[in-house]
């Protein structure tokens, strides 16, 4: 097993080259008189091509990845990334398209983007989408800006607050604050469902938007969602849905039917585009017809059988990033959806829900669920340190790595102590789930009989538990500008 790799710069040999280039017709200094040039080269590694290939291949071997490991990460929807999506999006015709090319020269890309927008509208029941946001949090901010523009257009200057449940993912209040709103947190019931009375009490003429995750971060459907939507609308506010958990609703239910006005989806979650170690993803935002004029531009429109980029719109909020969005990611999501018909979409959600409940039931005697109810696509269980010689969720997570499983999401949602949020997704077999159950049960037993093994895990990985305190107190984020003497 690869135990660790020197840095690329540590393998550098002065004078070593990988790529060489034709000589220019004249030295740069002659084209650039008087321009300040570098007086010293940047400290980058000097390696051969084989050095580079070997280095990054060996680095890759230090990683867990979905191709090799089960990732039951709650709220992340780590489902299989079909390779057909990669092949679809990598084609030279798509990859070589310049964003400033005339519309007539990029009809294929525009058709796919338009197609994706139509399919997302079908899935959600909403009227229109923007594909511009590059991530879920980016989508949230975009949705918040749309809500702000809507209230401004109504000349209602009192809408200064956004309401968020205490179980919300941290991006929700962060995005709200960045959107210029004050954040009001409302309490949820122990099952994570909104306390509707508390919500009503929090609503008022100052409420611009209420942000909910449906299903919620405990994996439960907000059964009173229509009542909630009515209350929100009666207060003159809009209802935003964080679509991180849309895998539970795919082909089963349409958020527009619940009364949702704005939502974002995560293409790198529900729509199987790869995580890439942290990105790129995409967070398209869908809206009702009333809000369509406020969508960011550009958008793809279809006129007389041809596709075009619409760049003008008097009420648009503008743009939230350069160019049209993470187009290659959108192409992959389009390809994913074209592989499914309505029944297949339903099966995605159904099997995701089946798998999550199976794990809940197989583990609940040792890791009590936060809520004693069937869940949808994810379940939240708890470690009980007081029964396990002080072994905590963090320790269980690290020991799971030794068993060859990526750990579930831990310490979220915040209202469940020692939380383990488990989302298996629909692409895992019962055999994989059984192996995961066996591993957790073994760790539970080990916690009772040999807790120190669990508390000091992981043992079988390229590194032992890492010193995060030192990393934060003495940050070292880059190799030095000069080589060590």
């Amino acid at each position: 097993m690869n135990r660790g790799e020197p840095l690329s710069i540590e393998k550098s040999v002065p004078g070593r080259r990988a790529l060489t280039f034709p000589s220019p017709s004249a030295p740069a200094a002659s084209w650039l008189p008087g321009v300040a040039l570098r007086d010293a080269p940047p400290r980058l590694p000097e390696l051969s091509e084989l050095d580079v290939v070997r280095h990054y291949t060996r680095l890759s071997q230090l990683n867990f990845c979905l191709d090799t490991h089960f990732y039951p990460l709650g709220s992340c929807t780590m489902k299989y990334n079909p390779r057909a999506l990669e092949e679809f999006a990598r084609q030279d015709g798509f990859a070589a398209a310049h964003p400033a090319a005339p519309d007539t020269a990029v009809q294929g890309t525009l058709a796919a983007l338009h197609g994706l927008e139509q399919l997302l509208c079908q899935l959600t029941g909403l009227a229109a989408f923007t594909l511009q946001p590059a991530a879920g949090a980016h989508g949230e901010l975009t949705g918040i800006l749309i809500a702000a523009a809507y209230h401004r257009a109504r000349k209602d200057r009192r809408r200064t607050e956004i309401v968020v449940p205490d179980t919300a993912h941290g991006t929700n209040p962060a995005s709200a604050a960045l959107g210029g709103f004050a954040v009001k947190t409302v309490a949820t019931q122990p099952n994570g469902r909104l306390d509707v009375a508390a919500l009503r009490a929090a609503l008022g003429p100052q409420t611009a938007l209420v942000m909910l995750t449906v299903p919620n971060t405990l994996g439960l459907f907000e059964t009173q969602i229509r009542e909630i939507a009515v209350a929100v609308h009666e207060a003159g506010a809009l209802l935003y849905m964080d679509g991180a958990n849309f895998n539970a609703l795919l082909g089963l239910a349409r958020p527009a039917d619940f009364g949702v006005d704005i939502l974002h989806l995560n293409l790198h979650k529900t729509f199987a585009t790869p995580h890439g170690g942290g990105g790129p993803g995409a967070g398209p935002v869908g809206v009702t017809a009333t809000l369509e004029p406020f969508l960011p531009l550009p958008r793809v429109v279809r006129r007389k059988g041809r596709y075009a980029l619409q760049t003008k719109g008097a009420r648009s909020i503008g743009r939230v990033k350069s160019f049209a969005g993470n187009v290659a990611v959108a192409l992959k999501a389009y390809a994913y959806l074209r592989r499914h018909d309505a029944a297949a979409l339903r099966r995605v959600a159904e099997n995701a829900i089946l798998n999550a409940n199976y794990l809940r039931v197989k583990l609940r005697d040792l890791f009590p669920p936060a809520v004693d109810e069937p869940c949808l696509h994810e379940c939240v269980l708890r470690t009980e340190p007081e029964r396990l010689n002080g072994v905590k969720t963090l320790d269980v997570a690290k020991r799971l790595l030794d068993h060859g499983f990526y750990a579930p999401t831990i310490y979220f949602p915040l209202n469940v102590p020692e939380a383990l949020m488990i989302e298996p997704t629909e692409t895992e077999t019962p055999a994989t789930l059984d192996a995961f159950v066996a591993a957790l049960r073994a760790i539970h037993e080990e916690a009772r009989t040999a807790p120190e093994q669990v508390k000091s895990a992981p043992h079988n990985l390229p590194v032992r538990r890492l010193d995060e305190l030192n990393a934060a107190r003495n940050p070292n984020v880059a190799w030095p500008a000069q080589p060590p003497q």
Partner: protein
Amino acid sequence: MYSPHTAAEQQAMLRDIGVGSLADLLAQIPAELQASVAAWPPALTEPELLAHGRELAAQNQRLLCFAGGGAQEHHIPAAVSALIQRGEFLTAYTPYQAEASQGTLQAMYEFQSSICALYGMAAANASLYDGATALAEAANAAARITGRRVILLPETVHPEWRATLRTLFAARGEPQLVTLPCLTGRMEPEAVAAQLDDSVAALVVPSPNYFGLLEDGAALAALAKAHGALVIAVADPISLGLLAPPGAWGADFAVGEGQGLGNPLNYGGPYLGLFACRQEYLRHVPGRLCGMTTDAAGRRGFVLTLQAREQHIRRERAASNICSNQALCALAATIHLALLGPVGLREVAELNVDRAHRLAAMIAAIPGFRRRFDGAFFNEFVVECPMSATRLVKAMSKKGILAGVPLGKLYRGMDNSLLVCATGKRTADDLERYTAALRAVAS
């Protein structure tokens, strides 16, 4: 079809769960809200999907690319494409469980280090969505650090970046953007000095700017500092293989668009926002940051660090809501830079300068065409054409050439102006073909 369950497996699992059917598990969704999708196209098999993909891609016209404007076509080494398609990188998750993610984390550290080296800075993050986002974050940081409200933004910063900043900042009403006109295509020191007062948090200095022109960064930085303002440099990373880096001429923050390093054009995304700064501003760096540390056995390792700045902890008091980076795009850039090395990067930069300057001279020799704006440039320049630049681009595309970015919709009075880019990927034959086509279209 990616769901593996057989009917028998489903039945067995339902029995174990203790329910009669899948419908029982869906009961918490009110019946009246359960609805299938309406008009949905039939499912495509994999071969049908790929055939459909080929048809669509064929509807894109493959044009010889002379357009830049924040997206440039450079050669992507085959090794880059091969390495980023490895499943261990492609399908890895965000490295929160550091011990299981040392490959991704070490690559992040090498990325951060490479960006620091290029920009002459001590700190860089693991990337942001694109250059526009990086600039917005730098402006936010400068406002927070100085406690001042105004950002001086020359109109030679990419128009789409400026539009993005306007949208993002309109929400909170701050920072306040003051646009600096640049009629000569570059910043005018007297005009800049006139706007500098103690309300200014930062002066943005793009070099090369949107028109490809280079600025005297050191002189502008000195002006800013005299008024207590910070300096945010905007620079193309490949140009920094040759040009003095922002850290050397007095910038506090440096941002850029990293797409040109190992990432295809992809019609605008995913791209790569680069963000770097001086050591003293480390705690103001947004987004993900990888740090080197040791493990329990004293071995070197890497972790995400300074996470208490981030949204999942600070929630509504986070400085930024960004919680992702463009990891795979950053990996492509890191590998590309490792293949280039400092000498190769300089050679590429010199080649870019050479191609662009030769093309500029060839175009200026065609009657009716002249360069607009004087001054040194990197690999892009503005041409004043004897006709509408938009019409010219259409006519050139019929000849299989993307002639450049027409500037009429982006800048007043520039309907006949065309932003032309020639990277190292353009050969001498390509330049000949361009100028021959241009002559034909203009006659």
